[in-house]
């Protein structure tokens, strides 16, 4: 992808960006992995294809901020939403990042299988930002692709139809699988606390053993801490080695934000965050 490499090399040569966070091929050449290019030569390794499912915005809060130049990042339309969300939450400023927007024609859910309508993650099925809304330079072309029905939406409806005992049993069977590897947290661009509540030992709010009791509190609190903040990239679910459907919780929180506050996080960098602000006219019906 020559256009992407040229844009990255231009940014690195002009010292506008100190490094470019992007994608490179894995040694077997079949998949891609996150890759940080610090010189124009290294930038030649950058690629973009259907296996670039990662949300690289997670590195913006993890990497040491450069003394000179900006943090360059290769971002799909959905990833720019995470970047805007981080700007909204004052973790980074717009002039600290150099965004190489790539027009995206969808990524695969399972990188080992070929790209197609039956191998699309939920974020691509719901996608409305094939062309990144925010970018410093825009590369590539966005090709339309067939969008099947969204599996997460269907599962949400199934869950909605259950009674509370069934729902509790469903989550008990799902959370029982959790091994507390915290991959969901590590891969989430919005989970940037320097000390996570689950790592606090005095007092220990969340049991750190992978018992069902600790798993319940961990997964509930993780979802709650992303309430009104989740940008729906689905990285937590993709990273989960035990295939826990975490997006069913995140999606629900997003629906509440949409229905009750008509709010989407990571769209307008000027807007205050939802849980960080309040309104006197908020729903008061559930109070006695």
């Amino acid at each position, binding site marked *: 992808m020559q256009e992407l490499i040229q844009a990255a090399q231009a940014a690195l040569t002009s010292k506008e960006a100190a490094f470019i966070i992007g994608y490179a091929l894995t040694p077997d050449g079949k998949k891609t992995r996150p890759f940080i290019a610090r010189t124009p030569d290294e930038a030649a390794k950058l690629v973009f294809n259907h296996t670039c499912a990662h949300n690289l915005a997670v590195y913006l809060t993890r990497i040491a901020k450069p003394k000179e130049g900006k943090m360059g990042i290769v971002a799909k339309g959905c990833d720019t939403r995470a970047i805007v969300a981080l700007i909204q939450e004052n973790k980074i400023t717009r002039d600290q990042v150099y965004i190489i927007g790539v027009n995206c024609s969808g990524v695969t859910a399972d990188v080992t299988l070929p790209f197609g309508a039956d191998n699309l993650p939920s974020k691509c099925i719901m996608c409305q930002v094939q062309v990144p809304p925010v970018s410093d330079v825009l590369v590539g072309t966005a090709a339309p692709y067939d969008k099947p029905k969204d599996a997460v939406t269907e599962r949400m409806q199934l869950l909605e139809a259950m009674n509370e005992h069934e729902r509790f049993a469903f989550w008990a069977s799902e959370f029982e699988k959790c091994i507390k590897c915290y991959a969901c947290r590590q891969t989430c661009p919005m989970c940037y606390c320097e000390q996570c509540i689950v790592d606090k030992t005095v007092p220990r709010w*969340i049991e750190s053993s992978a018992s069902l009791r600790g798993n319940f509190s961990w997964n509930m609190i993780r979802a709650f801490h992303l309430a009104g903040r989740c940008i729906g990239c689905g990285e937590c679910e993709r990273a989960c080695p035990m295939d826990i459907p975490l997006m069913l919780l995140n999606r629900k929180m997003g629906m509440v934000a949409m229905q009750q506050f008509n709010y989407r996080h990571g769209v307008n960098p000027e807007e205050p965050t939802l849980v960080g602000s309040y309104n006197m006219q908020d729903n008061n019906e559930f109070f006695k």
Partner: protein
Amino acid sequence: MNFINDDIFMAEEKFEPKITCFVCNWCTYTGADLAGTSRLKQQTNARLIRVPCTGRIDPVFIIKAFESGADGVLVSGCHPADCHYNTGNYHARRRWIFFRELLKQVGIPESRLHFSWVSASEGKKWVDVVNGVIDTVRKEGPFEDYHKVNTEFAFPEPEEAVCS
């Protein structure tokens, strides 16, 4: 001499719910105090935990209450526009709008988690709210779903080390 009242042991085992109440220092706690000094009668299933403000109540407290065996939780504070710290209850309300929906999604029914605004002068309202919550939860029965999570699936105690 028999100091033990046999009635306690002989009585038929009847379910009495445990209710954890998180109440704000400035309104509801004082309101509950007023209920006491006014000699109003209320059921005794509620355990009060006093916090500075409803804004201090992290949802993790509520989960911890369920983990510790509560059958129901009541959260209560100052009426909107009455907060001692001006905006604490507004922030708390917004958080709970999300938290309620999250618990519903996980399968913890609304009848287990109650919210109210009770001011310092509403001793009578406090008694009504507490009695109402206790009656609701008593009707629901013990929170077996979560109790199971606490006990049956709890991480096993390590076996006693055997020295060879």
